């Protein structure tokens, strides 16, 4: 979903950091993308290449760190892995689940010169 806007958001954060930290070129960008965030890593990489053209991040390597989806099952009263936001509890098969992790979309770190 909307990877183009997200890629633009990533570039904005990079450009802000460049002003604060005075760097001229970005070599690598590490993103943390949760499994339940709705972001397709391939689409993200494609859009990132497109929006960074002509910017300080042109040609930068994009490293996507996938974070696992987790949820709280109310019936089991414990944290269980989730692969979809409306997933069933792998233990009891119930749907009374609250997502607790895996929706992250963060710029974690940059390698710059």
């Amino acid at each position, binding site marked *: *979903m*909307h990877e*183009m*806007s*997200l890629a633009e*958001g*990533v570039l*904005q*954060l*990079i*450009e*802000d*950091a460049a*002003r*604060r*930290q*005075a*760097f001229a070129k970005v*070599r690598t960008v590490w*993103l943390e993308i949760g499994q339940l965030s*709705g972001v397709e890593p391939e689409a993200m990489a494609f859009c990132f290449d497109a929006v960074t053209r002509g910017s300080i991040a042109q040609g930068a390597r994009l490293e996507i760190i996938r974070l696992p989806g987790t949820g709280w099952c109310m019936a089991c009263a414990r944290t269980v892995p989730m692969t*979809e*936001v*409306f997933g069933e509890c792998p233990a009891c098969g119930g*749907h*009374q689940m609250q997502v607790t992790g895996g929706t*992250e*979309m*963060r*710029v*974690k*770190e*940059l*390698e*710059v*010169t």
Partner: protein
Amino acid sequence: MCTTCGCGTDEVKLEGGSAGHRHVHGDEHVHADGTRHSHEHGPDPAHEHSHEAGEGHGHSHAPGISATRRVQIEQDILSKNNAYAHENRQLLAGQGIFALNLVSGPGSGKTTLLCKTITMLGGLPVAVIEGDQQTSQDAERIRATGAPAVQINTGKGCHLDAHMVGHAMNRLELKDDSLLMIENVGNLVCPAAFDLGEAHKVVILSVTEGEDKPIKYPDMFRAASLMLLNKIDLLPHLDFDVDAAIAFARRVNPQIRVIQLSATSGEGMDEWLQFLRDGLASAVAAKQETVDSLRQRIAQLEAQLASTPAQG
């Protein structure tokens, strides 16, 4: 392009000319001068700087070799949008405005429902922000009801963001104690992630669509607090399973409230109008509470001042 914030006015069009840019963009444009360095560093990737102004750089550098370093960012990709949304939310709270972000797929009957809602609210102040990729037809339909409306054309964009909505709010000159309806771009995917500063997202599903939409587009149904099941006057002609649709919605969002209605027949509209009136009443009450507590504080301070012996 806006030179302050980099927003692409060449892409996004706010009806009636440029966006005006009266906004204050937080502190992200304030640069701490004196932290800029042009020297190059030796090939030491672990080389760390605090880069304080006036700091003496006593170490030696290998000329001509530029080294890489790591910069920790740890920021949400949507943090900029969220900051604008926070600004919008504060402005709305300060004026006692109840704002809703209406989201749905194309053709769910959002604009018709909105026109009917404005007419049935009879005189209650409502302003509308219309989001579409192209044309201002929807805003014109709204204005025909007498309500002020601004059209945002997102161009290539598939959703509204908080920054565009901030500009549109500026343009609308919103009344105190009123309703603001933001009709998002017809799209069940992208608008889910973008907070605009609204009190609630309201998702509209019409019975001419599939009842499994909530599980096909779970992010949107999870982000919404209310689902309007629209066009129920057509149910006798369709195979749409209302109970299944509601069960699917509750599977992705156990807390979601559901109102079944038809903008055409008027059925169920009372419950929806009551939801709006209740929301507006709490927004106004919250504003009043803030005003009252500020007045109380002023009175306290004045009393203190009065009891302080005058000093010659």
